């Protein structure tokens, strides 16, 4: 029993970077993300005994994180939408050549993700960053799987719209080269 508990604790602590990354993707603010990840870890460590199936650790942790974020939003009486994305980012962003730099690519994508409605942002990041199944996302966010799919669909449509010039440019090179 003690062995399982110690191993679980270690696994929770090792999840810190994963929690921070997801929190950052959701709230877009590094300091807040760090606080949320820390808080989620503390809560998880305090209630580790409640986790019956260690294989479900990641989903369980992410659910705690999502709840922490909701609590935070309620406490601040504001939504965690911290800044609206500037449309000019996509319109006046780097040229295709400049976009080759990975830092610019990262910025573009993060801006596009940050411009999504919060619910869509949560779903698409859980699926794409953590590889969660639709069922897992439904459990983590406590929403029906149909809602997961529709939010995901809308999120991707919006992301494609914002990132289309870059996506097309990369794929265009790819496709042209094999003709």
């Amino acid at each position: 029993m003690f062995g399982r508990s110690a191993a679980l604790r270690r696994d929770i602590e090792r999840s810190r970077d994963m929690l921070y990354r997801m929190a950052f993707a959701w709230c877009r603010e590094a300091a807040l993300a760090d606080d949320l990840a820390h808080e989620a870890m503390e809560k998880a460590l305090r209630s580790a005994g409640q986790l019956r199936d260690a294989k479900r650790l990641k989903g369980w942790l992410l659910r705690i994180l999502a709840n922490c974020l909701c609590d935070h939003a309620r406490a601040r009486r504001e939504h965690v939408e911290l800044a609206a994305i500037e449309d000019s980012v996509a319109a006046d962003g780097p040229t295709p050549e400049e976009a080759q730099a990975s830092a610019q690519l990262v910025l573009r994508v993060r801006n596009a993700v940050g411009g999504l409605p919060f619910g869509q942002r949560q779903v698409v990041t859980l699926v794409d960053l953590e590889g969660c199944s639709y069922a897992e996302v439904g459990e983590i966010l406590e929403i029906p799987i149909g809602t997961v799919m529709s939010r995901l669909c809308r999120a991707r449509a919006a992301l494609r719209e914002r990132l289309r010039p870059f996506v097309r440019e990369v794929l265009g090179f790819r496709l042209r080269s094999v003709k």
Partner: protein
Amino acid sequence: MSEENRISDELRGAFVDSQLEAADWAQVAAQMERDPALRDDVCELRLLKDMMRHAYTEPPARRRRPAARPGLRWPWLAAASIVFALGGWFGHGWWSGGPALDPTSAYALRGDWQSLRGDWRTLDGSRVLMHVSSGAQGALATALDEVEDLLRSARAKGRTIEVEIVANSSGLDLLEANASPYAARIAALRQEFPNLALVACGRTIARRTARGIEVSLLPGTVIAPSALEQVIKRLRDGWIYVRA
């Protein structure tokens, strides 16, 4: 394509997310064989997914703070190091649903090397980038096996081909002089096939060095600024991308 046969956006998404049952997956795959527009669409979705992963591989550095313990608000324990696996942006290889292998669909679908080897008509004169981001022994061995098969098959068929192995994250172990379990084999391959190039990710090297790990690469290994930049550069130059 008639509207009734259209694969819905939800289904396309579920396809790239590997959320479909076998029958549905086969239906989408079959439709892709017939529908270039669908292939391109799935291709875009996969690229988008890869870009997402890459964008958050390295979020801003966290403040250094101790790890949490139940009951203690700020315990004095060493903070976990930030180690993110770089990679996964272009996590897809080849697909062939039959003899009509279309290289433009290569990026779109997860695939297998059997398919790649199965149809060489489209590969003559091609340049293939093999991306290795996992240091798992099985993954490294498979990557090398496939590269060797690819090179030998091309030579046997008199095909011209260039192959480049790009390694990052834990996949860098493959090119580490002191860690690679396949150093001798790679050296022999390089000697036999001058058209095999080795490229290491500069960012992975920098991260290891920052952690006090000395990185010594196999002879002939070139260092790229980052694996991502190398992959994008190669894609733009018309290389075929394959994920180990």
